[in-house]
């Protein structure tokens, strides 16, 4: 077997690895249990009993209390919590995979919304064109472009503001364009507004002290 530096070092360290001192370990466990039972009546704001792994202690190992005699939790995540910071190496990869999947879904939803809106406002001419003979697929191209955009911007889902705007436009646009009652009301409103504008212009006297008149004088 080849002798390498790492092997030699670990051989040395392993040879000097101390034996477990069960008495000392047991004594420490007893001490900890005694300390916990001594402060068993104390609770923190969530109602949890004293646990040295969760609650703040002083240098003597006694719990630190608030003014209201409540235990104070240590900052950071605690042992056994779901959102543990334990690194398992591949965790990041799976997060990336799920983010990418949600971006693809968001991109497809965005493109479909835009297509629907286009169809509503502009009619059939605005629907996506797919021509396999020419290799044209507008929807697919749109999905890819939006997916790249979301990836570049770090957006995992469609922003809620965009969804609200899409809904408002899809609700209002067809009614404005095609609803007979809406169109007549809009025409009346436009006429009323124009009449007000023309009336105001007719009443306004011409300005006398203009730059031109000053120069002429």
């Amino acid at each position, binding site marked *: 077997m080849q002798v390498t530096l790492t092997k030699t070092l670990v051989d040395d360290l392993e040879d000097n690895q101390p034996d477990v001192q069960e008495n000392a370990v047991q004594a420490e466990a007893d001490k900890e249990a005694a300390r916990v039972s001594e402060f068993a009546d104390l609770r923190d704001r969530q109602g949890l009993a004293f646990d040295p792994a969760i609650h703040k202690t002083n240098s003597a190992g006694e719990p630190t209390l608030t003014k209201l005699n409540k235990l104070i939790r240590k900052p950071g995540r605690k*042992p056994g919590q779901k959102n543990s910071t334990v690194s398992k190496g591949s965790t990041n990869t799976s997060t990336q995979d799920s983010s990418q999947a949600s971006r693809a879904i968001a991109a497809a939803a965005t493109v479909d919304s835009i297509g629907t809106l286009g169809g509503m406002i502009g009619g059939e001419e605005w629907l996506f064109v797919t021509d396999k003979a020419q290799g044209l697929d507008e929807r697919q191209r749109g999905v890819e472009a939006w997916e790249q955009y979301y990836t570049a911007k770090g957006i995992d889902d469609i922003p809620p503001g965009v969804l609200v705007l899409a809904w408002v436009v899809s609700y209002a646009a067809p009614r404005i364009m095609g609803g007979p009652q809406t169109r007549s009301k809009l025409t009346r409103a436009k006429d009323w507004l124009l009449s007000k504008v023309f009336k105001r212009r007719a009443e306004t006297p011409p300005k006398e002290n203009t730059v031109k008149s000053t120069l002429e004088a």
Partner: protein
Amino acid sequence: MPHSLVLGMTESGKTTLAKKLSKEYQARGIGVIVLDPLQDPEWSDKPDSDLFFQTTDKDEFLASVKASKRCAVFIDESGESVGQYDTAMHWLATRGRHYGHNCHFLSQRGQQIAKTVRDQCGRLYLFTCSLTDAKILADEWNKPELREAHGLEQGQFFIVRRFSGTEIASAFDDKPARKLLDKKRAKA
């Protein structure tokens, strides 16, 4: 004194050496517990193995150390996590051996770690460091040859044991260490 100090400047090779040791321990069936604020995934080839546990949280780390026995324990950036006044972490050096643990404290400078902890270490792996730090360590470990540590190349390090001669090796090529003779002793 089962614990080790791994000291040296940034990018001198401390963590490279520690990761190699970590993997070798696991290959031998010895459990490894790592406290690494940077969450580096390179500490293990099999991060899901029962022999490996890594965290960034001090409390979680200490709970894990107390719940296991005869493990190799690595504390990266010990200057921050162990420091001078963190008594809970000092426990690791003073009482950790009762649990059969072999602790490795990684830091840029020896003085960043409390003397109580430094005194519990029987091994020093010293990478390149400042002249001042080298002098202090030479005095502390009673090894005059450590004053030359400022001239070590990247990856090179001194292997120092309390009661035997100093050796020199490189963390990058994994070749066996060679003995280093003090200049005065060599002349004699």
